[in-house]
C-alpha cells in the first residue's frame, strides 16, 4: 500500500463498516434464532453477488466525481438479452454470457462518450442511458421474461459458479470466493495501475491531471466502461442466482450498489474510495435486506433503514470535514 495515511484513513472507514456489519449480525442473531443458520449466510451472499458486482464497477465513476445510474436497468436488460439468445435463439450459454457482458461494455462506452467526450453531466447522461437500457432489453426480446437454464439442466453449469450444490445436498456459496478474487483484482486496478491512479487523479483535480499529460478523456471514459463491464457481469450473476429475468425490473438496483459504495466510504464528490470499502458497504445493505424480515420487521423497514444509513454515512463525512 503506497499511501500510508490515506490507507490508514480508509482502514478506519472499513473497520467502522466492518464493525457495523458485525453489530448487525449480532443483533439479528440475538433476535432471531433462524437468522443464525448457515442457509441465511448463503442467502445473504446470494443477494450480494449482483449488488457487489455493480458496486465494484460503479465505484470507478463515483471516484471520478460522477455516477452511473444506468447499471440497474442495464443489468436486467443485458441478462434479458443474453437469456433471450440462449433460450430462444439457441446460442451456447457461453456466448450468451459473453453477449450479456459485451452489451454492458458497449453501454459503458456509450456513457463514456457522452460524459468524457461530449461533456454531459453524468447524472443526466446516465439517467438517459438508464431509460434507454430499460427499453432496450424488452424491445429486443419482445417484452417477455426469460429464464436462463436452471442449475439442473445440462446448460446450467454457470449457475454453479455462484452456488455449488454438492451431491449430499450441501450448498457451498463459492460465488463469494470469486467476489473476493474480483475485489482483489479491482483493488489492485484501483490502487496499483495507471487506470486506477488516473481515476483518482481525475476525481481529485481533472485539470491538473490533464496538465500532467494524462489522456484524461480516455481514462474518464474507461471508468464508465469498467462500470458497464461490471453491470454486464452483474447481469450474469443475477441470471445465475434468480430463476427468471423480468423485463421492466431493475430500476432501483443501482441505488443499492451506489448506496453500498457510499456507505463504504466512497465519496460522492470524487477522489476518495476503496473497493474493499464498497464491498463491505454492500453487505450492510444486503444484511438489511435479508436480516430485517427475520427479526419480524416487515420487509419495508429495510428501505427506511437503507435511507437513514445512507444519510448517516454521508453526514459522518460532512461533520468530519467541518471539524
Amino acid at each position, binding site marked *: 500500500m503506497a499511501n500510508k495515511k490515506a490507507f490508514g484513513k480508509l482502514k478506519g472507514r472499513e473497520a467502522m463498516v466492518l464493525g457495523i456489519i458485525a453489530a448487525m449480525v449480532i443483533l439479528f442473531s440475538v433476535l432471531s434464532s433462524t437468522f443464525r443458520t448457515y442457509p441465511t449466510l448463503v442467502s445473504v451472499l446470494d443477494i450480494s453477488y449482483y449488488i457487489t458486482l455493480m458496486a465494484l464497477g460503479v465505484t470507478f465513476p463515483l471516484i471520478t466525481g460522477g455516477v452511473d445510474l444506468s447499471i440497474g436497468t442495464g443489468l436486467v436488460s443485458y441478462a434479458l438479452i443474453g437469456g433471450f439468445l440462449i433460450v430462444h435463439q439457441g446460442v451456447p450459454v457461453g456466448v450468451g454470457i459473453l453477449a450479456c457482458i459485451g452489451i454492458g461494455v458497449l453501454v459503458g462506452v456509450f456513457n463514456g462518450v457522452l460524459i468524457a467526450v461530449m461533456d454531459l453531466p453524468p447524472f443526466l447522461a446516465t439517467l438517459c442511458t438508464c431509460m434507454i437500457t430499460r427499453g432496450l432489453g424488452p424491445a429486443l426480446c419482445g417484452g417477455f421474461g426469460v429464464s436462463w437454464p436452471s442449475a439442473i439442466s445440462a446448460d446450467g453449469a454457470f449457475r454453479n459458479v455462484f452456488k455449488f450444490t454438492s451431491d449430499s445436498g450441501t450448498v457451498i456459496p463459492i460465488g463469494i470466493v470469486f467476489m473476493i478474487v474480483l475485489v482483489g483484482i479491482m483493488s489492485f486496478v484501483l490502487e496499483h495501475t495507471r487506470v486506477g491512479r488516473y481515476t483518482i487523479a481525475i476525481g481529485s483535480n481533472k485539470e491538473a491531471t490533464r496538465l500532467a499529460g494524462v489522456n484524461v478523456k480516455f481514462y474518464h471514459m474507461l471508468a464508465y466502461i469498467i462500470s458497464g463491464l461490471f453491470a454486464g457481469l452483474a447481469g450474469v450473476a443475477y441470471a445465475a442466482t434468480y430463476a427468471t429475468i423480468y423485463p421492466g425490473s431493475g*430500476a432501483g438496483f443501482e441505488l443499492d450498489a451506489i448506496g453500498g459504495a457510499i456507505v463504504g466510504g466512497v465519496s460522492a464528490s470524487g477522489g476518495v474510495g476503496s473497493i474493499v470499502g464498497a464491498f463491505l458497504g454492500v453487505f450492510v445493505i444486503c444484511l438489511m435486506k435479508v436480516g430485517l424480515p427475520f427479526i419480524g420487521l416487515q420487509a419495508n423497514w*429495510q428501505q427506511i433503514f437503507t435511507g437513514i444509513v445512507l444519510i448517516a454515512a454521508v453526514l459522518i463525512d460532512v461533520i468530519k470535514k467541518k471539524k
Partner: protein
Amino acid sequence: MKVEKIKQNTLVKKVGFNRIVLIFVMLLMYLIFGGLTGGSFFGISRITDTLNYAYFLGFLSLGVTFVIATGGIDFSIGPVMFCCALVSGYSLMTYGVPMAVSLIMSILIGVLFGAFNGYLVAYWKIPPFIVSMASMNIAKGIAAVFTKTQSVSWPQSTAADGWYRNFVNMNGIPVGLIVFGTVAVICAVILNKTKWGRYILCLGSNEEAVRLSGVNVKKWKMLAYIICGTLVGIASIYFVAAYTTVQPGYGDQYNNEAIAGCVMGGTSMVGGLASISGTVIGVFIISLLQQGILALGFTKEYQYIITGLIVIAAVYSDVSARRRKN
C-alpha cells in the same frame, strides 16, 4: 457587436427560442403521429386523454424544475408522490379520515419530504443526489409500512367521497386543465416575479455571488425543495384522481419522465436557467410521445428509448451552447 446580438426578434425574445423550437417539435410530432396512424391520432378526445392522465406528471415536472434550477436534483419525487397518496389514502379508507383532510394530508406529506430534502441539502451540504436517494427509500418504506404493503384504491367517482375526482374533469369541464394551468402560472409567477424565484434562480447560477450580496442562500435553497414537495403532494392527488389506485414500493418510473420533461424544456442541470413554460411543453412532449408510440402499436419500451435519446440531444445542445458562451 454586442448591440446587434441583443436586437433579436421580439417574439423570440418574449417566448424564448427554445420554447418555439419545442412547440414546433410538438406540432411536428403530432402531425407525424397523425399521419402514421391514418388520422386516428387527431381529435379532441385524444387530446383530453393525453391531458387527463398527464397532469400528475406535469406537477412533478413543475416541482423538480425548482430543484433543478438551484443546481440540484431530486430522484425522490415519484416515490414521495406515491407515499403521499398511500398514506393519506390508507388513512381515508381504513381510519375514515374525511376526504378533505386526506387531500390536505397528501400535500403536507409532500411538503415534509421537501423540507427534509431541502434541509439536508442546504444546511448540511449533503449532495442532493444522495439525499434524494435516501428519501426515496424512506418514502417507499414509510408508505409500505403504513399500508402494510397493500395497495390503496381511492374511492370511485360514484362513491360518496368521489368528488375529489372532479379535480380532473367535472361533467366535461376540464377542471384539471384549469388547475394545472393555474398552478403552472403560479409557478411561473413565483419563478419570475417574486423574490423566491429570483433568489432560487440566482443561487442556481452563482450561489457565492448571491451570498456575497447579503442573501440567506440556505433558506432559499431549502425553499426550492419545499416548493417541489408541495407540487409533488398535488401531483399525488392528481395521480389518484386519474388512476385511483396506488401501490407501495413503486413510483421511481416517474422520476425519469418528470426530470426528462423539465430538462427538455430548457431547465439546465448546471442551474440558474429554468422555464416553467418549457417544462409544461416538455411534459406534453413526453406524454405525446407516449400516446403516439402507443397509437403506432408499440410497447412502452420504445418510449423509454426515444425519450432517453431526446433528452441526451437536449442536454447536449444546452451544454455546447453554454460552452460557446464561456
